[in-house]
């Protein structure tokens, strides 16, 4: 077992330096957990296959070897059990990080997450907080078979008491996971699985942006594209293509889905007066609905056109060979933008 110190992780000193070298997102996440395990002996990791195998995506690779089975271990195969025992451990004072193998496999734990993880702090008047991080490889784009490509964010973001964040690049993956682990609030940490092996990110200089802030990842003047997780790359591609059409696109990476960074988004929309939100999940009641509704509420008189949602269709996630027809593409986004009346 690796030596551990009693120093608690300090959210203030997330070290982007560590992630500054070109890492994959997988490696950045692994490093974040490694550093947290080293700095705080109360951090433990468990779940399905997270031990010797390192998880089906190898995000916990080497952690059991380096920290021992009493810090990082394979649990029985039961998601409600994983979350339920994590709650008990957190009540004891540990800071459990658990992995749900895919979004759809967090559903057996829905009751534990919604009725307990989200509510324990409030129920006990703040006396019992649950510093649990629930890591979920999310979304599609890897040709996964049924149940392996869901985007579950709307279920979690509608649930008061949960903090829901999602990184879109390795640097954020590192700093946001560190901050999530250090947070006394339970965090749903959505990892875009299609990005695990991508090295390119949005390099950041200076200290890491707090995980509850959105980032303007590309400046523009005509339209604001609101994206998160796997759709940030799509939005950036769209912005590039839009140059040909003389359309200046600002791209925001929301990063934090709950809370929502009204300030950053509001400022952008007031500037561009047009916005669209992009996600993979089904549209109806999806996270984009909240984004569109709240931004419209707050910035209605600055809007020249309705906020558009370019999202998955209202159908179950398709089989691998058909997913390309479902996922939002730059072409589809540009098509959608062209439906706006532009000469108002």
């Amino acid at each position, binding site marked *: 077992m690796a030596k551990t110190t009693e120093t608690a992780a300090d959210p203030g000193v997330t070290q982007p330096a560590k992630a500054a070298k070109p890492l994959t997102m997988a490696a950045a996440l692994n490093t974040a957990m490694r550093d947290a395990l080293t700095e705080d002996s109360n951090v433990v990791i468990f779940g399905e296959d997270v031990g010797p195998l390192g998880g089906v995506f190898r995000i916990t690779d080497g952690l059991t070897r380096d920290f021992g089975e009493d810090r990082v271990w394979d649990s*029985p195969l039961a998601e409600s059990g994983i979350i339920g025992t994590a709650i008990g451990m957190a009540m004891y004072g540990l800071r459990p990080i658990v992995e749900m193998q895919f979004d759809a496999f967090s559903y057996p734990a829905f009751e534990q997450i919604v009725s307990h993880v989200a509510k324990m702090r409030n129920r006990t*008047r703040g006396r019992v907080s649950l510093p649990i991080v629930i890591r979920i490889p999310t979304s599609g784009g890897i040709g996964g078979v049924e149940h392996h490509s869901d985007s579950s964010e709307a279920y979690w973001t509608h649930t008061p008491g949960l903090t829901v964040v999602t990184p879109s690049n390795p640097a954020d993956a590192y700093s946001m996971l560190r901050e999530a682990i250090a947070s006394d609030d339970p965090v749903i940490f959505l990892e875009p699985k299609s990005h695990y092996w991508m090295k390119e990110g949005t390099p950041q200089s200076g200290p890491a942006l707090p995980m509850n802030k959105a980032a303007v990842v590309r400046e523009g003047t005509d339209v604001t594209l609101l994206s998160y997780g796997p759709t940030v790359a799509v939005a950036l591609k769209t912005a590039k293509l839009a140059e040909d059409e003389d359309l200046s696109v600002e791209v925001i990476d929301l990063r934090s889905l709950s809370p929502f960074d009204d300030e950053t988004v509001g400022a952008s929309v007031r500037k561009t007066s047009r916005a669209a939100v992009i996600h993979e999940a089904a549209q109806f009641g999806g996270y984009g609905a909240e984004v569109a509704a709240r931004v419209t509420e707050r910035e209605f008189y600055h809007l020249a056109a309705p906020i558009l949602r370019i999202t998955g269709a209202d159908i179950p996630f398709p089989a691998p060979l058909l997913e390309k027809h479902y996922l939002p593409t730059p072409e589809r986004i540009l098509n959608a933008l062209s439906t706006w009346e532009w000469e108002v």
Partner: protein
Amino acid sequence: MSLTEETRAPAVLPDAEAFSLIDAGGAAVPEKQRRGYDLPDIDVLKELYRRMVIARRWDTQVTALTRQGRLSTYPSARGQEASEIGTVAAMQDTDWLFPTYRDSIAVWSRGVPTAELLSGFRGDWHCGWDPNEHRTAPQATPLATQTLHAVGFATAAKLKNDPIATVAFIGDGATSEGDAHEGFNFAGVWQAPTVFVIQNNQYAISVPIAKQTRARMLADRAVGYGIPGYHVDGNDAAAVYTIVSEALERARSGGGPTIIECLTYRMEPHTNSDDPSRYRDAEDVAAWKDKDPIDRLEKYLTAQDAIDDALREEIAKESEDAAAAMRDAMNAEPALDPMELFEHVYNAPRPALLEQRNALKAELDEISDGGRVN
């Protein structure tokens, strides 16, 4: 250290006969049926008796005030005092209890003040006490979920080498939930220091135990988890105390979890809004009255000359004090601060939530009498 070991537990069928030390008539069970156990010390029995009597008085008072509308709802544990008190009396202060809505008297008997304890049922806040102060988790409503919390907590203690055990209460009906299985199974695999006390009071609201399991008894479930299982007369405080004490000691000293089924009966309706006449006969209830847990211990102690009038009076006084304190607590207006609704949702402050808070504040300020909407 590794939580799991290659070793498999042997398969042992629990005894079919419910374990008992003092029978329904108040007589000590003959030694050869005691399976090697002695009766607890007479002082322990007196203490069990005292706590049960007071608990029943308190419970009766809560039921009465609930009928008068002072509480939103109350699930009484009348008839289950031996299981409730026998269990918590066996616990050390450092052990943690993970109770359900049914187990108010157990929580009360652990020392949680009435006003804090009944917050949830009165309706001023979901959980009124500090779990850390009383080493007692909030009463769980979502059935069987608490078994996993108890196992996680116990596992954390084990990982930290702290000699702390946890007790999870669970009802007969709740054992049908997936979480009950996961709780038992995780405990078995991780050898968590958790004692599961199944209070088989024969009904889940209106549904009888025969519709929950085809097995001989719920204790048989233990076999499938490689966990020791016990079937105990849940109206015999001596038996409950003995088996739970042993299980807790085993747990604290690295021997892993135990499943204990206490066979008992819910004498009252499920809650005040239930109507048991729709699903059970008055005769059944009457038959169980003859097995009353307090009566039998009182008979035993009387036969042993272990209680005299002075003690009876002392206990009666304590009971009335508890009831009076209960009434006072519930008759006092609860302190309600609508602004607190926004306070504990997150540790990290949220501007948007503050906006909602301020909107409610403005609304309330607008209302002339300063703090009440319609």
